């Protein structure tokens, strides 16, 4: 177990030094999954055999002195919304139960090319629609900090897998906060890159113009290492940016020195106050003070159009989703429900989509169908796209005053499972601070800011940067992480309650810290 608490960067160093093998490491993760996933339910599918085979191949490369990448041999979990050739891909939906894609998402292909064994597919809200992972058709994921609470969503499985030490690294996707908000409530690091920074090819779309893939990790440096493996131009994605990534790992290493002299930090006035839990606000303010202590200059910025971000998001996202999800019609793949009698293709489509989609998916499809309808297009979808412009303008003005912007990642800590399940509006409010970045296409990161005093649950600190300046997130994130851990004396996750594994995984020599 002690072994598993190390970071991916540390694993990479140990693999390079021959202190551990990828097979040992991968087996340790698989053992941990076997021990705790019954309680946490991070995974929808575990590919033990495949992961161990990839690990063995990695060990062979390491032995031959030809590792495929720095992270060669470090195992990873992949959100079940990315196509994996030969592995089931369900998107947390009954409608795709049993579907095995005949192709790999670009991100998955890059993970394989870089030698990272894929442990399995992680749980998520159905088609990434949700902020709690309760909308998975295969049951909720539980927050390792408190199994009665949600791990955030939609990527609760990836965040919980990392927080529960089932995997050192995971892949998430973020349409309105689905990487950052789970990161916040599980005490982990989650980054959404600049739109177009990481390929969407093979990512089953919820809202194409907002979706991005990103790293889910325990440390900022790990995020940068993974980001450099999966990021960069992909000719299969027309919206992919055709230029090299900034030096992300270098920025993270640089930031870890803790010196932020000359950095201008903008605190977003609209993302605080009412609706923000006291302990969340307190930890946020303390973190800002730490940045000042590190030499940063803090200013307050105002983004008045953020007041309409949630409304714009809940028009654009369902509109795109309603169209994206039309393909799940029982004709070519996935579930087919055949009603009694002599049903037509239309009847089969209707019955299948009723049986195969959950309530939240139906709500959003109907909402999107409504927003795109001819009589309402200008009033809703058209307006929402204009609000998107206003939000980008607000960001542009704010970035004139500051190099990065900061806010709490989510207004509250993890709520109890079931608490907001049938109150969609309350659920949507979880994303109020994360959504503006998706609408504007800019990058954002959430890093642990401590535990809220009132409930002892993790709080996330969000940093936003202008488009293409993802490196700033790593510099600031790594600095804040270093300053906080100096205060805490250890990573925040060391304060998480021990999950009681049924079996203690095998320790390896040299693994003790």
């Amino acid at each position, binding site marked *: 177990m002690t072994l598993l608490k190390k970071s991916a960067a540390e694993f990479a160093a140990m693999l390079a030094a021959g202190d551990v093998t990828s097979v040992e490491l991968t087996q340790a993760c698989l053992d941990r999954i076997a021990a705790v996933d019954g309680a946490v339910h991070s995974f929808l599918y575990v590919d033990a055999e495949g992961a161990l085979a990839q690990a063995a191949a990695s060990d062979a490369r390491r032995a031959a002195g030809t590792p495929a990448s720095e992270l060669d041999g470090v195992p990873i979990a992949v959100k079940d919304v990315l196509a994996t050739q030969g592995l089931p891909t369900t998107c947390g939906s009954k409608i795709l139960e049993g579907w095995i894609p005949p192709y790999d998402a670009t991100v998955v292909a890059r993970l394989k090319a870089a030698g990272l064994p894929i442990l399995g597919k992680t749980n998520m809200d159905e088609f990434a629609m949700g902020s709690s992972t309760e909308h998975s058709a295969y049951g909720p994921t539980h927050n390792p900090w408190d199994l009665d609470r949600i791990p955030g969503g939609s990527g609760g499985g990836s965040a919980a897998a990392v927080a529960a030490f089932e995997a050192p690294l995971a892949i998430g996707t973020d349409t309105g906060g689905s990487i950052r908000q789970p990161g916040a409530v599980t005490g982990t690091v989650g980054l959404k890159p600049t739109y177009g920074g990481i390929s969407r090819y093979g990512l089953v779309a919820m809202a194409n113009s907002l979706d991005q893939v990103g790293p889910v990790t325990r440390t900022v440096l790990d995020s940068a290492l993974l980001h450099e493996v999966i990021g960069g131009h992909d000719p299969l994605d027309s919206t992919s940016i055709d230029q090299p990534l900034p030096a992300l790992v270098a920025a993270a290493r640089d930031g870890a020195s803790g010196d932020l002299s000359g950095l201008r930090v903008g605190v977003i006035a609209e993302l605080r106050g009412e609706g923000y839990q006291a302990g969340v606000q307190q930890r946020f303010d303390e973190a800002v003070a730490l940045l000042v202590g590190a030499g940063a200059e803090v200013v307050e910025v105002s983004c008045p159009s953020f007041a309409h971000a949630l409304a714009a998001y809940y028009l654009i996202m369902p509109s795109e989703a309603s169209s994206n999800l039309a393909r799940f019609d029982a004709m070519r793949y996935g579930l087919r429900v055949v009603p009694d009698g002599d049903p037509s293709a239309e009847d089969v489509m209707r019955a299948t989509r009723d049986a195969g989609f959950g309530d939240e998916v*139906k709500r959003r499809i109907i909402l999107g169908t409504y927003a795109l309808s001819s009589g309402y297009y200008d009033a809703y979808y058209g307006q929402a796209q204009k609000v998107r412009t206003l939000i980008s303008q607000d960001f542009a003005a704010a970035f004139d005053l500051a190099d990065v912007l900061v806010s709490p990642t989510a207004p509250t800590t993890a709520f109890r499972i079931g608490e907001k399940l049938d109150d969609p509006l309350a659920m949507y409010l979880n994303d109020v601070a994360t959504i503006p970045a998706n609408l504007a296409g800019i990058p954002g990161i959430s890093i642990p800011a401590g535990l809220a005093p009132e409930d002892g649950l993790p709080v996330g600190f969000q940093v936003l940067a202008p488009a293409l300046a993802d490196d700033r997130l790593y510099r600031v994130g790594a600095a804040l992480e270093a300053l906080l851990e100096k205060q805490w004396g250890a990573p925040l996750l060391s304060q998480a309650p021990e999950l009681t594994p049924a079996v203690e995984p095998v320790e390896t020599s040299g693994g003790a810290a």
Partner: protein
Amino acid sequence: MPEISRDEVRHLADLARIELDDAELDHLAPQLSVILESIASIAGVAAADIPPTSHALPLTNVYRDDVVVPCLTAEQALSGAPASEQQRFSVPRILGDEQ
């Protein structure tokens, strides 16, 4: 913003090819009304001269060359099919017209 009626939800579900029974309509219609009410604030927020943003980043002219790349095999293409016959996807009888 008008409240969304049960009939309207039924019509939208029909456009979206989702068979909703009465219980589901009872459950979903009021929720959709609440959501719509909350996003009604957006009407009139942006002036007429504000350009809409359809894409987060202003990229243009992304093309590929007209060069053939390997296809899936028919077996792969049909691997997920609920039913197939004669190397084709078998679908229930189609209502309406040839498109």
